[in-house]
């Protein structure tokens, strides 16, 4: 059993890192071929779509908001892209850009309702959660399944650069960008301030509306980008693409230590949370455990990690 070293300054990220190491050790012992470069690449490949959503949700949740519509928006972007490519003869590159544009438009709608009309994000995105999925199903009659995408496009989801799955580069780029935004720029501080107290932030002269516009717009763009990678990985676009992804992404963010009440959260925490979930899924399969355990253990992990953090902060205060 790995013991976290040092008595002071134990952060949530440390707890998570220990958890990830623990999972790795456990599955290395139980699973077959768990510790292999090939498996590491597959874990990474399978995590990219949820990862992009989780990265974009981190600033959203840091402001005390939420975006439940990202999974549905992924589905909508995917089918628009599929329809444009197959039925309207749009070149694949342009169709992919269109998917990102649909994501941006969907995110823009959320942003306008939340930032301009000051409606609660939970209600707005619960509405667009249904709206976007409904549009995707309506567009395809629920039955269309777009496939036959060109090889060079599928490379983005199925190919490799050396040992690295192609789409991992997109995730890495997104992580750097969101990291800069949240941790290196003044905007990051203002997002945390909004999370602590929107009114206080307004009095402090922070353009709260504009900041919220930005984070929800980014969330939509991430959903669009995630749709492109999803389609490239599976070679199909269907209205049910990304069903339930929003909850997994939110789980990764919260597991990563971002407070659901806003005000705090880190990109590396989110990445660790993502990794902990992905290893759990993968490790259980490789060690021949029933897949249902993944759900149970995800719940245990989340509650355990949040409980540990709460104990941690009590201790700091005390």
């Amino acid at each position, binding site marked *: *059993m*790995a*013991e*976290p070293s040092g008595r002071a300054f*134990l952060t949530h990220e440390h*707890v998570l890192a*220990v*958890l990830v190491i*623990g*999972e790795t050790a*456990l599955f290395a012992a*139980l*699973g*077959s*071929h*768990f510790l*292999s470069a*090939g*498996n590491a690449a*597959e874990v990474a490949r*399978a995590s990219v779509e949820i990862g992009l959503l989780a990265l974009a949700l981190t600033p959203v949740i840091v402001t005390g908001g939420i975006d439940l519509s990202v999974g549905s928006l992924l589905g909508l972007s995917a089918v628009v892209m599929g329809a444009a490519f197959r039925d309207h003869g749009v070149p694949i590159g342009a169709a992919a850009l269109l998917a990102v544009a649909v994501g941006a438009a969907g995110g823009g709608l959320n942003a306008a309702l939340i930032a301009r009309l000051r409606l609660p994000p939970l209600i707005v995105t619960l509405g667009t959660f249904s709206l976007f999925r409904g549009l995707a199903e309506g567009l395809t009659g629920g039955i269309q*399944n777009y*496939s*036959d995408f060109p090889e060079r496009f*599928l490379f983005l989801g*199925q190919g490799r650069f050396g040992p690295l799955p192609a789409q991992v580069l997109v995730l890495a780029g997104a992580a750097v960008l969101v990291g800069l935004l949240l941790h290196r720029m003044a905007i990051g501080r203002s997002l945390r301030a909004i999370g602590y107290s929107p009114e206080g932030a307004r009095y402090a002269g922070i353009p709260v509306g504009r900041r919220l516009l930005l984070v929800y717009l980014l969330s939509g763009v991430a959903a669009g980008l995630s749709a492109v990678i*999803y389609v490239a*990985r*599976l*070679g*199909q676009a*269907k209205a*049910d*693409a990304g*069903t339930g992804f929003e909850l997994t992404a939110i789980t990764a963010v919260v597991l990563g230590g971002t407070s659901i009440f806003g005000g705090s959260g880190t990109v590396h925490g989110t990445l660790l949370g993502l990794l902990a979930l992905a290893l759990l*899924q*993968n490790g*259980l*399969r*490789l*060690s*021949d*455990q*029933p*897949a249902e*355990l993944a759900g*149970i*253990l995800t719940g*245990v*992990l989340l509650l*355990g*990690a949040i*409980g*540990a953090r709460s*104990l*941690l902060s009590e*201790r700091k205060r005390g």
Partner: protein
Amino acid sequence: MRRAGVGLLAVALAGIVSGCGGAPKDGLTVAMMPKNKGNPYFVSCRKGAEEAARELGVRVLWDGPTETDAAKQNEVVESWITRGVDVIAVSVENKEAISTVLRKARGRGIKVVTWDADAEEDARDFFVNQATPRGIAEALVGHTARLLGDKGEFAIITASLTAANQNDWIKHIKDVLAEKYPGLTLVEIRPSDDDRKRAFDETQTLLKVHPEVKVVMAIASPAVPGAAEAVKQSGRRDVKVTGLGLPKDAKPYLHDGVLDSVVLWNTMDLGYLTIHSAAALAKGALKPGATTLPAGRLKTVEVRGDNVLLGTPFTFTRENVDQFDF
């Protein structure tokens, strides 16, 4: 305190995981995937698969999406490739989506069979085919001829007039009629658009327009109860319904007597044959060019090209339908 928390969590994790782990056995491992783990259709396939596994001493890993989900199918296959199972057997939700990973599995020396629904041909070694269109046509026309005494008129309620599967069956039904049953006349083919209510309406109209029709053949799953309900409400006890569909929908009408029979395949046998095919493939007993395969209690089954054939379809009647739960 915090260390205790982390420790507790890790111990709990280890406890849950190891508590459920079985010691790996020797011998073949066949990883088998349904389209949907919860669907009773596939649950009954699994029964047959496990029966064959016990006979052959094969280890079956049964996993798949909890609802039809092509993305999940790919993830599970990926993990099977990493684990290095001997054979992967998949009921394919989406051809395009799964074929890439199945090709990858073959590239790593894993044998691949598809069952129930096929992938692209170069993505698998064999397809365990539950029913050929010709076999289905022969069974359906056979029941019709029995009901009519080899002479008389019948009509078909199909899915939609453009449905590929149904049109294929209709083509073979016409061939079988021409070859074997000159006394039977197909007077009308009506669409139901896979909708029970539409099948009901079409059947009502049909009975009025063609009073001499004595058999309605409903060849889409929702059309079977729709047609049966229409005949039942018409009070015409001289008209019978037969068709192709799921036994669950058909059950009340089979017991009522208005529905004579429904044709499908025996799902338990399908699972059973899949494991036999997978094991034979891994042991080298099933190779390209094979024309037969010994398959336990199913005796010797036919192999045509790269299709392992389950054989003649199975007929559900009021006598046997209660054994099936899908």
